[in-house]
């Protein structure tokens, strides 16, 4: 008998609304006097049209919506460059301790010693992990860490009376690198990578002169490989007075193995939502602390957490500071989670993280090498990039493969990145996935490669098991419908 699946849930919370239904209960106002303190000229004239639903409406609606998502808790999520590892539940409990979650940012220093201690210690731990002299915890995400780092470099050059106007960035870089650099007021110059995603040192050397402020590079690079001549590169940059910035998106590969500071980097940012297990939350929040060498310390964002004897304080007297990045001190809730994680793992545990991340990525790479073209020869570090150029000859693209994976019960790798690889599929398994999961994923990838040859329509049709099928992106962009209008 043919079995027809139940139709997918298709409600918005506004469509559940029933006038007069209520989902909250507040205590009655217990102070005398009405709210006549607010003059009429400031008052809202038409009540906001918001949903009127019961608490249970809310619970069922958002429970049902959640089931229309794949997440790390439910699905293997090999999104390259994003380090979609397990997010420990203990972190959540710790971040919700009342002393952390219900703490006001402008509480006096004497009333927030526990929070300041945690920030101070986390800064020290991240400095040790990256081989840096100081860390600012303030940036809200990686891109803001980049902005902070590049602004500190700018302030450093300015303090020495140097006018440098350009920043060099490889063509394989994340989009935030050029965007953050341009926002910091620099001209972005793209330098070429080799086919394996490594820096073309001759091309780099040609560009290095007294107009260049910084070279910004991801290590391991976006093809998942460690740059073998990295120390030569940072030395070359320094010999021309150029600062070197490391995008730390791929730090999960080198914990306890190599440290950006030891490699010669002046600045690097951390993505706590990647390497340090804070949850990705459907797109954020993240946290993007930035580590620096001592010569950049005067320029750190304000305030800086300092320790005076046994007392911790926020130090605002930083006349050379680049300023502030967010109103308060950083995404503190994420800092609690990262601190919890680092304390859970310890030095040996963190080293084992990278060992296993590298092992898992190489295992996937090996298992796929017969059926997909590798973007670069192995061994890789924590992620591998394969190309669907062979499948494309049968009309099956990287996007088609991504969609078919959804039907087979896996989220998709990053697609079409890095830009220097045709039909790129960037796979980052992370250390928290087991061999069994990786085998199931590789089996699915190999199955799709066979389907691309024998039954490409099956791949083109995908996905068919998801709540919706492929969506009309063109319509969405031509006729933007960005809010519900009833």
């Amino acid at each position: 008998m043919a079995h027809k699946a139940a139709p997918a849930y298709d409600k918005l919370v506004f469509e559940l609304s029933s006038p007069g239904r209520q989902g909250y209960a507040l205590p009655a106002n217990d102070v005398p006097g009405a709210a006549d303190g607010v003059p009429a000229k400031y008052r809202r004239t038409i009540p906001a049209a918001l949903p009127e639903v019961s608490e249970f409406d809310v619970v069922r609606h958002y429970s049902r919506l959640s089931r229309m998502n794949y997440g790390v808790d439910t699905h293997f999520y090999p999104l390259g460059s994003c380090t979609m590892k397990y997010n420990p539940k203990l972190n959540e409990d710790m971040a919700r301790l009342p002393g952390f979650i219900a703490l006001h940012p402008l509480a006096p220093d004497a009333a927030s010693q526990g929070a300041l201690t945690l920030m101070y210690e986390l800064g020290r731990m991240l400095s040790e992990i990256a081989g840096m002299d100081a860390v600012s915890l303030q940036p809200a995400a990686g891109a803001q860490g980049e902005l902070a780092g590049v602004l500190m470099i700018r302030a450093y050059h300015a303090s020495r009376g140097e006018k440098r106007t350009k920043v060099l960035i490889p063509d394989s870089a994340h989009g935030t690198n050029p965007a953050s650099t341009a926002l910091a007021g620099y001209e972005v110059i793209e330098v070429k990578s080799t086919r394996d995603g490594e820096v073309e040192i001759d091309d780099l050397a040609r560009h290095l002169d007294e107009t260049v402020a910084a070279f910004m590079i991801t290590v391991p690079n976006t093809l998942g490989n460690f740059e073998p001549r990295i120390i030569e590169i940072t030395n070359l940059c320094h010999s021309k007075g150029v600062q070197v910035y490391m995008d730390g998106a791929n730090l999960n590969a080198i914990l306890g193995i190599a440290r950006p500071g030891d490699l010669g980097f002046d600045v690097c940012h951390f993505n706590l939502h990647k390497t340090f297990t804070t949850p990705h939350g459907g797109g954020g929040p993240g946290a993007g602390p930035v580590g620096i060498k001592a010569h950049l310390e005067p320029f750190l964002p304000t305030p800086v957490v300092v320790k005076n004897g046994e007392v911790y304080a926020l130090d605002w007297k930083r006349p050379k500071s680049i300023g502030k990045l967010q109103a308060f001190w950083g995404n503190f809730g994420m800092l609690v989670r990262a601190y919890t994680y680092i304390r859970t793992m310890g030095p040996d545990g963190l080293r084992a993280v990278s060992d296993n991340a590298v092992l898992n990525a190489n295992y996937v790479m090996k298992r796929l090498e017969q059926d997909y073209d590798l973007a670069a020869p192995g061994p890789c570090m924590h992620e591998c990039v394969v190309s669907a150029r062979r499948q494309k000859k049968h009309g099956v693209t990287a996007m088609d493969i991504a969609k078919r994976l959804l039907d087979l019960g896996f989220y998709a790798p990053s697609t079409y990145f890095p830009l220097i690889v045709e039909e790129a599929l960037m796979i980052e398994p992370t250390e928290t996935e087991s061999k069994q999961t990786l085998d199931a994923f590789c089996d699915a990838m190999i199955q799709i490669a066979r389907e691309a040859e024998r039954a490409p329509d099956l791949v083109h049709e995908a996905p068919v098991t998801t709540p919706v099928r492929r969506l009309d992106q063109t319509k969405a962009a031509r006729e933007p419908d960005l809010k519900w209008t009833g």
Partner: protein
Amino acid sequence: MANVPADLRYTKDHEWAKPEGERYRVGITAYAQEQLGDVVFVELPKVGAKVTAKQSFGVVESVKAVSDLFAPLSGEIVEVNGELPGAPQVVNQDPYGQGWMIAIAPSKADEWKELLTAAQYEQFLTEGH
């Protein structure tokens, strides 16, 4: 092979220009719109703006790509295609006709001669650009 009308001239950035009396009509080629995919947005200058040959005069976007539009000729914008904001799809449907973008009153008439002929542009495309 994409359609390359013989009576137009072309740039290496895939714009075309067509003489119409004292002015030139400008758009993007059939090849360009194929490469972009479904055009979703076109940003054009205002009438009266000055443009310089080989400099950007606007932007054309598909869902996942953006291309600058480069002026084939220097001069003043005397007309823009007011239909495009509401119907960007005509750039895909009729790139040499209803999908035109701007009309330029040229300030340097000699620049026309520097543009590629249809034969040269076809050659340029077969070389794999």
